[in-house]
């Protein structure tokens, strides 16, 4: 069964979600990944959005976190305050896995979704943090979704919007952040994890048909590829659920 790199990327993220996780979702592909996990490998995971709904039914795929489709059949519909308090809260927050996108990611998993160039009058302005900085600050683990392109993996971010491991081991604690940080950078070419000691990204998986070289060629900084293995391709079951139940109208994938 053939598949696209976007589909592969989505399935790789879904596989990182465990049963019982509370999944914080943004718009687009992260929503598809969370919904795929719930349908495939983590039926008891709970999806929630920064806009406030907890465990909505999601009979149609929402196109934004404020889509009315996130409101239907939820356990509760609050607002932003309730959503972020759920993450900052020590009981519920410790069970949350976030999925974040960004315009840039550095070797420590720090994210830029604000701007390229000078902050005051940038060359390119992006939407800004939204809830991303909050999620990255509060929850014990989060996934980063990003397309593998050189300019998206810079040596130095133009603006640090959301904290990864900052400048390395111990930095989060020093700055005052709760324990946590990114656990994987999932791209259209492979998956990077973070070294326990250095907190730097290393290549964990490359997708079938992609080489570690292809990946390094698409980054400004280089990463350790010695631990890399080829990822298992999506199974037929995974693809079928993704295509038929999660995003049947190809709204996102």
């Amino acid at each position: 069964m053939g598949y696209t790199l976007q589909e592969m990327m989505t399935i790789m993220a879904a596989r990182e979600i465990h049963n019982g996780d509370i999944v914080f979702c943004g718009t687009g592909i992260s929503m598809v990944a969370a919904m795929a996990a719930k349908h495939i490998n983590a039926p008891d995971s709970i999806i929630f959005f920064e806009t406030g709904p907890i465990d909505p039914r999601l009979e149609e795929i929402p196109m934004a976190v404020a889509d009315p489709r996130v409101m239907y059949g939820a356990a509760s519909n609050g607002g932003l305050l309730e959503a972020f308090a759920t993450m900052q809260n020590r009981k519920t927050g410790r069970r949350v896995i976030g999925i974040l996108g960004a315009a840039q990611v550095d070797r420590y998993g720090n994210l830029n979704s604000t701007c390229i160039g000078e902050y005051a009058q940038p060359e390119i302005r992006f939407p800004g943090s939204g809830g991303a900085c909050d999620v990255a600050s509060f929850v014990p683990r989060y996934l980063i979704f990003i397309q593998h392109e050189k300019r998206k993996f810079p040596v130095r971010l133009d603006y640090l919007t959301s904290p990864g491991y900052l400048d390395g081991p111990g930095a989060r604690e020093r700055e005052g952040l709760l324990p946590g940080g990114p656990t994987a950078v999932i791209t259209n070419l492979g998956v990077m994890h973070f070294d326990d000691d250095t907190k730097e990204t290393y290549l964990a998986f490359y997708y079938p048909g992609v080489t570690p070289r292809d990946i390094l060629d698409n980054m400004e900084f280089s990463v350790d590829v010695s631990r890399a293995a080829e990822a298992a391709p999506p199974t037929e079951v995974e693809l079928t659920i993704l295509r038929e139940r999660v995003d049947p109208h190809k709204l996102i994938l």
Partner: protein
Amino acid sequence: MYCIHQGTGSMNSNQDKVMTLEEAIARFVTDGCHISIGGFTVNRNPMAAVYEIIRQGRKNLHCYAHSNGTGVDELIGGGCIARIEIAYGGNGKAAPTCIRFKLAVQRGELLVEDYTNYQMALRFLAGAMGVPFLATLSGFGTDIVGKWGFSREMRANHPELPNKKLEIIDNPFDSWGGAAKVVLVPAINPDVTIVHVQKADRHGTCRIEGLNFADIDQVKAARNVIVTCEEIVDTEQLRDKPEYNSIPFIHVDAVVHVPFGAYPTACHNFYDYDPIYLRHISHFAKDEKLYAEYLAKFVHGVEDHHGLLNLVGKGQLDIIAADKKTGYAVGLDRR
């Protein structure tokens, strides 16, 4: 500059606050005033009010936004906003970065101060509670703390702004709560907040259906409040279940009846967002000439929101009508 029109007698339980949108905007939204609007990206933005503000030609507004996508981007495009404090200038599929926001910032036409969504929500809550700040654990180690859009000098010259963007302090209770430090964010008290709700009575008591986003605190933090609504309902109907009401009348100064007042954004249980019209805006927004034409025809070219709805046509409004059970337009083509 402060523009305070303290609502006179807005406390009276029997005061009828119903007025036209034209009157409400003329009275409470003045050049240079500090404004916030409700809703979130493609949902329950007070669009009728936004377009009326543009039509009335308001300038130099200082805007407080979390992720109020469509409404804020149109206000920027309409030339109304000079400064913005914002968490997110994106609008879902129609505009991953809000187009007029992006262009204005890149051209240096819009002064921006960035916060996170939670920080903005807390700032409105602080304003609603009447405290100068609230604490959060987000922001540490980021440029949100280090890079200020409004400099200390500018802040010193503008008493209507807090002296600092934010402040990090050591936890006075040692490590109580598992935190060595906290980020304090200053309260917001807008001159005027405008929200669009499903149901309100003539005195301003509101019932919001679906998510409330940050609307309730945006309202309670404001010096003046305009509520636009799909339906004006009997007071008795709302008071039958007071725990389901979102805003008591004491905070509200104007109630305006505007069916489809959030169009082209969604209003849960009434209508969905209009993917076609949102794409249509995005198409025009990318080009100066096209956007000028768009404003001329679809904003300035109509008398009021009803005029816009007429241009859109009943057929399209029927397509986005909400399903009774789910609250949205089931099966709506959103590609």
